[in-house]
């Protein structure tokens, strides 16, 4: 949702001078508060330091994109697993013999 909100904000900014005024006055947080950003994302975006609205938008895009990217986790089986199963089997076979 954050990316959609950011898209809407940047799209609006090309015809709505109030966004630029809020940004220039250091009050972009208020504008972000009206959009569908999580409180944490709003804080992060409000804290970005940029020299212009366009630069802010590009930085915000990077932040939102990174947050929306699902965390990549590589889940390989432990190399121990195969050995442990083998050991278990040997142990139970040994038990049966005994």
């Amino acid at each position, binding site marked *: 949702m954050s990316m959609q909100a950011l*898209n809407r904000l*940047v799209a609006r900014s*090309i015809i709505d*001078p109030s966004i630029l005024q809020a940004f220039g006055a250091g009050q972009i947080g208020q504008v972000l508060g009206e959009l569908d950003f999580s409180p944490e994302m709003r804080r992060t975006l409000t804290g970005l330091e940029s020299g212009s*609205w366009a*630069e802010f938008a590009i930085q915000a895009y990077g932040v939102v994109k990174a947050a929306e990217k699902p965390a990549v986790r590589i889940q390989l089986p432990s190399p121990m697993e195969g050995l442990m199963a083998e050991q278990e089997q040997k142990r139970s076979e040994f038990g049966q013999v005994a």
Partner: protein
Amino acid sequence: MNPVTREERHWFLRCLAQGLFEYMGAAAPPIPVEGLLQHPPDTYREDFGVVDMYSTLWDATFARPPNGRGSVFVRIDLKPAERRFALAREVLSALITSRHGRAMGLVQLLMADLKDSAEYFARCLVVPEPLLNAFRKRGGQQAELAEKFGIPSGVAGLRWEDSPA
């Protein structure tokens, strides 16, 4: 300004095109780009205009006379599809050099790659994402895009590739 990737720049341009598309309120193609230039948002009252010209040099070019209103000067003998795209491309120069655009920081972001930016922006403006998605959903094919949106076929091909389904 920090270096900006092509992908970031294109995202930004898509947003700008979307903002203007929403302002126009076009529900169906073709997009009235000339109407946008003749009846611009208040922010661009002094920046948008269209002037027909007889020239063999350019298809269209944006110019801002000193102390005057900016206008796109467009060759009078262009076909409607070529005219629509040429006007859309020059809208970006009008935005960048406008008071609002300069205050946004568009000069620093877009001037270095103006040709690529202007053509990408124009493709997004003449074929806005929501209308392209609707066109695809109704089974529209690439070959029909140019005719449906009233744009040159080369532009339609690139737009189709820009935004894979």
